[in-house]
């Protein structure tokens, strides 16, 4: 059952969530299309997990319009459930099971709806082939997380939600995970929404980044767009007659030109650092906190 590519796979408008007097989400809009990777970036407590749990149908929102694959997650039936992949935050469940045994068990639920991954193929995809017969409870944190990802995609979902999927990954596992995400999005057209508080990861993975701070979307765009949107303050480091200087400027090129015009050969150790997404992110978080 393919979704018309014009309709977003995930369509959230005006999502609000309160727990008693605590408001966690204050009118969030998020859209994810087929084959798109969207990163929900934000500091701890921004409402990322709550948003994802609502999209997964595990939590009832206080207000707002939520559609995942055209269905309100609160009313989604089992056929809908089969099209949705979920990678929860890490748990301690199924600790006695063996890795391949557990994946095989989950795969058994899908055939009435869709063809699941073969266990061997899935193990290879997430890099757990050597751990196929390890006991789940004895996996390392990173291996455990890779198993979580495998469980999430076992039914070849059309939309995949991942809540902080790379916790505990070493750089190699991280790279493998990024490759997997791209593969799922590009080859299988999976719509992917993942949360992270790692800027670097958001930048590498996401077609689009939504920055969530204190339950509000403060920015929504591709990494280059977001970087451009903030009046970026680049940093110029140099030495003049052996003494070191750092200068922040919005026009690094102009500043350097002027520097050489005045001092020419007295300048050394020149280094220009462009604003990174991290700077953008920190600026946005700070600005938001000032406004409150």
């Amino acid at each position, binding site marked *: 059952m393919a979704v018309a590519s014009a309709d977003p796979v995930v369509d959230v408008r005006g999502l609000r969530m309160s727990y008693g007097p605590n408001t966690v989400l204050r009118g969030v809009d998020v859209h994810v299309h087929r084959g798109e990777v969207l990163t929900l970036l934000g500091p701890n407590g921004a409402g990322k997990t709550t948003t994802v749990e609502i999209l997964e149908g595990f939590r009832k929102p206080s207000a707002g319009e939520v559609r995942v694959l055209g269905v309100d997650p609160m009313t989604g039936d089992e056929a809908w459930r089969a099209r*949705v992949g979920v990678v929860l*935050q890490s*748990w301690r*469940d199924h*600790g006695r*099971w063996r890795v391949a045994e557990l994946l095989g068990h989950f795969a058994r*639920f899908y055939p009435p709806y869709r063809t699941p991954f073969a266990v061997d193929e899935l193990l290879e995809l997430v890099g757990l082939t050597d751990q196929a017969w390890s006991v789940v409870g004895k996996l390392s944190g990173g291996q455990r997380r890779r198993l979580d990802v495998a469980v999430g995609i076992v*039914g070849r979902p059309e939309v995949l939600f991942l809540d902080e999927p790379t916790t505990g990954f070493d750089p190699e596992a991280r790279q493998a995970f990024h490759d997997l995400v791209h593969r799922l999005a590009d080859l299988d057209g999976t719509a992917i929404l993942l949360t992270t508080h790692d800027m670097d990861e958001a930048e590498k993975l996401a077609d689009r980044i939504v920055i969530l701070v204190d339950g509000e979307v403060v920015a929504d765009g591709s990494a280059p767009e977001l970087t451009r949107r903030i009046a970026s303050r680049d940093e110029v480091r140099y030495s003049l007659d052996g003494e070191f200087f750092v200068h922040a400027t919005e026009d690094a090129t102009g500043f350097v030109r002027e520097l050489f015009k005045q001092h020419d050969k007295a300048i050394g150790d020149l280094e220009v650092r462009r604003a990174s997404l991290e700077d953008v992110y920190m600026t946005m978080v700070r600005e938001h906190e000032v406004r409150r």
Partner: protein
Amino acid sequence: MNARAVAVRAGVGRGWAEFRQRATSFGDLVGELWPWIIALVVLYSLSGRTVLGSGVDVGLQGVPGVLGVSVVYTGLLGLSLVLINDQADGTLLRMKAVPNGMIGYLVGTVLGRAVLCVETALILLALSVYLFDDVQVNRPFTWFVLPCVLALGLLAILPLGVVLGAAFRSRASLGLVTLPVMGLLAISGVFYPLAELPLFLQGIAQLFPVYWLGLGLRWALLPSPAALAEVDGAWRHLEMVGVLGAWAVVGLVAAPVMLRRMARREPGSTVRPDAAGQG
């Protein structure tokens, strides 16, 4: 095959896998069995005197009760603990994320427990046969009645375990139930013939399945004169079927209701991994 049937089959596989994981772990098995083994050894040490009236050995008289209590303990409190743990450690949430996962979860968990109960009871029975001369395992009557009584007992007890496990969210709150259940075990004629307890305690005990499961097991496993030590001096097997059957109906009606409530329950802050710790 329709999707629910597929989930039931996956659940059967799940139950078998979970049973195997426990049954093949020596530590787990010892953990499940040691209280009952001690109880059997204590009964063995009481051997030699006979119950007044029936002439049945005092130790032997208590054996079926120990088996019954082990079934109640493993099937009721044990099962409810499993459900509570599975809510806390994310097992349930994980199963909810799978199509028809709750069906598979329920079938697997209850079935796994049922097999574990039977295994526990059989191990204890084997030990009893070794310790006591007169456990009646060599007659066709026992071969027929024992499985029936066990099955009926499990039908009465496992759904109640599901109800309890679904009703509570933490081990601490389950403690509220554990105590009364312990009390019930004490007055259910397991260690001491019910007929010799005060009448009002007899009345309470006969409302609950523990006493009747014990009675059924005594009926199946003891020589027939042992009936004289029972209330009314006879095996009241019809009443047994009636009370156990009634509890089975109550449990089977209440369990799905409670389970749906549990499944709808949202992941709370108490089950967040940062609160629960990772491992």
